[in-house]
Structure formats: C-alpha cells, structure tokens
C-alpha cells in the first residue's frame, strides 16, 4: 500500500549506494515516507516499545552472559556476583529481569489492542499469526530465562513445567527425559536452557522482521477498522507516528526505570533468592506474573474428561488457550473490524479482559482456598458407660468378608448392641467391638474448612476420651466455591469467548454506523 518509492538520493555517495544496496531507500520507505492512518491512537504505540524491549533484552542479556556461569554449583552465586561485584552488574541484571516483565506488559496491551480493533481480520491473518508465534516464543524464552538464576522458584518451576510434559500419552516420559537430559532437572537441563535462552531472542528478532514485513504489506489497521482509501486518510510515518511513538515510549521508559531503580524485585518471587534445593519444595510454586493466567487454566482442569485424566486435560487446556489465538481470524465472523462499532461485542470484550486479569489472580492463589464461606459439619455419636465387648471374626474367604461383617453387625445389633465397630485387620480377619446399654450421646461440630473440621472432631474425641470405646462420625462436606471453581468458570468464559461468542455474535449483531473513510469523521 506504500506505493512507488519517493526516495531520491541527494549526494553522489547515496546515489552510488542506492544502485548497489538500496538500504537507505528501504529505511526511508519503511520509516519516513511510509503512510500511516491519520487516526492512530496511543494503543498503536506499543509496537515501538516492543521493538525497544527486544533490543534491551538482547543487549543486557549478552552482557549478563559474559558473567553468568551455567553450572548448578555456580549459577546462583554468579548471579549474586553480577548483582554485587560486577561494575554496574546490579543495573544490567535489574534491567534484564524487569525488562522481561515490561516486555510482557507491553505485549499483552498490544494483543488486547489487536483483539479490540479486529487487527487479526483479513487481510492481516498472517500478520496476526506471526504475532502469535512471537508471543509463544517469548513465553518459552521467559520460562527458560527464569530457570537460569537457579533459585528455588527457578528449580521447582522448571520441575513442574517439565512434569506437565510427562502428561502427554505414550511419549510424555521420553519427551520429559529428552528435555531434561536426565531423570530430573539437573546440570544438563541448566546448560541447555542457557543455550536456548541465548538463541531464542534472535529467532524472535527474525519473526519480528517478518511481522513488520507483513505489516507493511497489508498496512496498519486503525481505530475505525476502515481501510485506507485515499491520501487524505494518511499522514507520513515521520514525523507523525515517530513523534507519537517516541513520546509514548518515554512514558513507558519512566515506568521501566521506576521498577529498575526503586523496586527491582517487586515483580519476582522472594523464594528465588534461596538457592535451588532438590530435596526441599518451597511452600508454593508459582510462575512469573505474566504466565499466571495460563497456570490457572492448567490447574482449573482438576477432573477427568472421559479417557483424558485431569493432568493431561489441564495441559491440553493450557496449550489450547494459546493455540486458539492462532485460529482467531477464522473464528470471528463479523464483517466489522473495530469493536468501536460493535456495541455488544464490546461488552463481551470488556468481560474478557476482566476474565484474563482474574485468571492471573487465580494463578497466584492456593487452588484449594475457599472463596465463599461454607459450613463443614460432622455429627459424632457415641455411647457412654455401656458394656463393651470385643470379639474376632474371620470370613471364609476374602470375597465373603463384607457379608460376614454385615451378618456380625446385624446379629450384634439384634442382640441389643447400641453401636458396633468392625476393624478389618487383613483379607479375612477383623476385630469387632460392640457396646450395649449406657447413654447414647450425640454432638455436631462445625467449621469453615475441612482441616478445621478434622481438628474440631479430634478435639471433641479428646474431650470425651476414655468414656467411650469408639465414635461414629458422619461428615457433611458441602460444595465449596474455591479458587479452582472460580478458575473453571473463568476458563469456560475464555474459551466461550473465542469459540462461541465471536463466531455467533459476528452473524447476529447489528453493528453501529461505520464511517465511509478514515478521514471523514476527522475532516468533516
């Protein structure tokens, strides 16, 4: 869409070069004369920030690699040495670790921007898919990089994630060993993770080049979602977009610097300052904040789906939650790109953003945590001051045990026993305790969690103590709304949004009035 080149070499040297390698022409056409829609808002400035982030991560990473030692005995100490002893090492290390977070912050805003304004729709499907590939590569690179400081979270995060791969049927275990280079996370794993962590950013850079190429072929989308129709719809990239990008990037860098200089550890987990210990699991294992939503999806599937067990189900759901982005261009059936003119879709989109944030919150919580108060209760029955009798029974065979026990229980109850307890000792033998006469007692205890209930039951048992030979306990465990339940609802919405809402809504929704051209609402 950029049309014929407007570059005119001014000097003899540039004319000479232009005949041999038209690189100045390429830069001029791409970043100076390139026409951009005149209505781009600040949500369109994140691409520039992301390019900067990639450069910052590569430059700071190359420097860190000059001091880092990828060995299980030295990795943790070498990172500490960078922080303490290497000149300006503290700054460069902080830039790299905070930079990862800033990179993801910017990429998430960039992706939500694309979702809202329909930037994935024809003719930009390939552009969008390249973006998804970049994001997937970023996730892998981020995960690999988090392993390198070899703290407790590094080690156990890597353990949990590689265990996840073991859930794949038949070949899972081989893949797991292949990735780890041994039976567990150890020296071979650290070594290769370092190598791949160094490699992948350059692969990302390559895909970014394709992403920009595809962008310049199809042209930028814009807040109205209307294609550029005439010169009136565009302004030159320089100075308009350049200045806007620089201003927004400056604000972004202020936030970046605030984290680097004032709270470099705010986005990480304190346990990663404990050296990795394969014998000691930290009390909770959580990934970095930018992966929490996917961790929540992984843990939401805590039930078996037919032949798929919960572990594999979680893995499938987690990969599907990223995979669904790749096919999004063909899921959204709406002819209107921008949600600015899709009043209903916009509501669902806003819910979607909240759901993603809530999933992130869930990923950082203990999955068993109860969110809505519930009452657990148990009724204990016992007999005080009765006649206690003990006998041994033996069933004729293992399969007849249940009948024999039931018969014994029935005959003892008929004989006047108030309560009977049968304790199975092995395949056929059991010891039977019965109590007759005495005063029947009953009490109900309540608690807010199952653990507290068990404590209450134990407390009551201790209180009654030797006054009774045994208790009968009937537990009433209610349905509880836990973090897992919440994650399940959120995960359901996440997939419904892509697989049901967008396909159906696109066909049924009556869109608002879309302007004929980009320039019309501005110039009219």
């Amino acid at each position, binding site marked *: 869409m950029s049309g014929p080149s407007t570059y005119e070499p001014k000097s003899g040297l540039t004319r000479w070069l232009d005949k041999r390698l038209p690189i100045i022409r390429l830069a001029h056409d791409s970043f100076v004369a390139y026409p951009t829609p005149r209505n781009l808002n600040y949500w369109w400035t994140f691409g520039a920030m992301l390019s900067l982030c990639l450069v910052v991560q590569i430059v700071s990473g190359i420097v860190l690699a000059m001091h880092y030692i990828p060995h299980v005995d030295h990795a943790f100490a070498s990172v500490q040495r960078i922080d303490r002893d290497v000149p300006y090492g503290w700054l460069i290390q902080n830039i790299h670790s905070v930079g990862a977070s800033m990179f993801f912050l910017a990429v998430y805003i960039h992706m939500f921007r694309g979702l809202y304004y329909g930037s994935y729709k024809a003719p930009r499907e390939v552009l969008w898919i390249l973006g998804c590939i970049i994001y997937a590569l970023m996730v892998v690179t981020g995960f690999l990089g988090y392993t390198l400081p070899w703290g407790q979270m590094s080690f156990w995060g890597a353990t949990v994630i590689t265990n996840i791969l073991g859930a794949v049927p038949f070949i899972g275990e081989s893949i797991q060993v292949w990735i780890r280079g041994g039976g567990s996370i150890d020296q071979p794993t650290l070594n290769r993770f370092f190598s791949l962590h160094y490699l992948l950013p350059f692969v990302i850079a390559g895909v970014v080049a394709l992403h920009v190429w595809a962008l310049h072929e199809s042209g930028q989308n814009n807040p109205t979602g209307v294609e550029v129709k005439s010169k009136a719809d565009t302004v030159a990239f320089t100075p308009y977009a350049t200045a806007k990008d620089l201003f927004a990037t400056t604000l972004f860098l202020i936030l970046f610097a605030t984290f680097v200089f004032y709270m470099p550890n705010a986005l990480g987990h304190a346990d990663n300052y404990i050296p990795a210990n394969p014998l000691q699991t930290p009390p909770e294992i959580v990934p970095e904040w930018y992966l929490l939503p996917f961790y929540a999806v992984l843990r939401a599937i805590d039930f078996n789906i037919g032949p798929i067990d919960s572990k594999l189900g979680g893995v499938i759901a987690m990969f599907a939650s990223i995979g669904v982005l790749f096919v999004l261009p063909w899921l959204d059936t709406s002819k209107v790109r921008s949600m600015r003119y899709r009043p209903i879709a916009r509501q669902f989109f806003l819910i979607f953003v909240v759901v993603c944030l809530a999933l992130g919150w869930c990923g950082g919580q203990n999955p*068993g945590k109860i969110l809505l108060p519930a009452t657990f209760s148990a009724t204990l029955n016992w007999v005080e001051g009765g006649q206690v009798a003990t006998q041994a029974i033996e069933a004729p065979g293992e399969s007849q045990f249940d009948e024999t026990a039931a018969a014994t229980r029935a005959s003892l109850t008929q004989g006047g026993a108030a309560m009977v307890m049968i304790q199975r000792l092995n395949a056929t033998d059991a010891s039977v305790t019965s109590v007759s006469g005495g005063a029947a007692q009953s009490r109900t205890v309540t608690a807010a969690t199952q653990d507290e209930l068990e404590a209450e039951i134990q407390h009551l048992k201790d209180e009654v103590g030797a006054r009774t030979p045994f208790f009968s306990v009937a537990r009433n465990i209610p349905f509880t709304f836990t973090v897992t339940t919440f994650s399940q609802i959120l995960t359901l919405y996440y997939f419904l949004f892509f697989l049901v809402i967008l396909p159906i809504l696109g066909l049924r929704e009556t869109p608002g009035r879309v302007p004929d051209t980009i320039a019309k609402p501005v110039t009219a």
Partner: protein
Amino acid sequence: MAEAKPNDAHGAQDATRRDFIFIAAGSAGAVGAAATIWPFVAQMNPAADTRAMSTTEVDLSAIVLGQQIKVMWQGKPVFVRHRTPAEIAAAQRDDYATLKDPQHDAERIAQENGEAGKPEWLILQANCTHLGCVPTFVEGSSFGGWFCPCHGSDYDTSGRIRRGPAPTNLPPAPYLFVNDTTIRIG
C-alpha cells in the same frame, strides 16, 4: 513432463526415467537430512555419565526405627523410611480401605526382582505424583504419612494417596537388598 507426448515412445521413456531420478534423488536427500538431524536431536538424551549415576547404595543400619532419610537417585529424591510397627499395622489395615489407587502394602515394599521386601523398610520416590513437589512426613497427619505442601495431597504410611489432587500413589523406587543392611536403588 510437459514435452513428453503419450505416443512418442522415446519421450515417454525419458519422462519416466526423469521422474525416477527426481524421486530417487528426493528420497536420498530426505533420508540424508533425517540422518543428519537425528544426532542433533538425540544429543539431548541423558549422556552416558548421567546414566551411569543411575544406582545409589544406602546403608540401612544408620537409620533408626521411625526415622526416614532422603537420598538422591538419578537426581531425584527417594524416601527410605524405617517404619514403626504401628505404621506397618496401619499400612496393612488400610489395604482394605477405600483407596483412590488401590494397592496392597506388600506390593509396595516388594523388591525390584519381585521378591518380598521387609515391612519395616519402605523405599519410595519422593516426588508428589501431582506436580512433583516433595511431600513432608507429618507425625499425626490425617493418614499418618506424608503431606504435600504444594497442593495438599495426603499420603498414608504406605505412601498411598488418600486425599488431595495427586492421581496416584507415590511410586516405590526399584531396589534390591544387597545384604541385610544395604539396599541398592536402581
């Protein structure tokens, strides 16, 4: 081939031979590429020295009754527990309790070669079957055995899963009694 005419016997033969050469060259190239890629994929598998570290010997005489040690085997922790008579009794009694992953205690202490183990020695791989954390042995926990701090799985005195998200029991580590007081894991 476009220039090959069906009734031109000479041309048709040429086209067939050319097709054959294309397919043969292509196949040879594909096999060559696969053979070249394979070493680069296979190098990530455990190296010979890593595999050589695959057995660990444990001297049991130093572990007193009711004590447990963690040893490293192939980089993974293994529990070696000297069980008390009460723990053994509880483990055997619960053979018939309602179990998520039903298994008898006797099967769980059996040696690698299928011979019976000794009830007082329980040798288990120490990674929770949920997501690989290391459970802690908690005296007086709900089922008297291990409790996983990550997601709350409760194991009994035989290492069987009794409550919580873990799908299966803690797997027994393959081991053999070398003599009365020494075992070899792996």
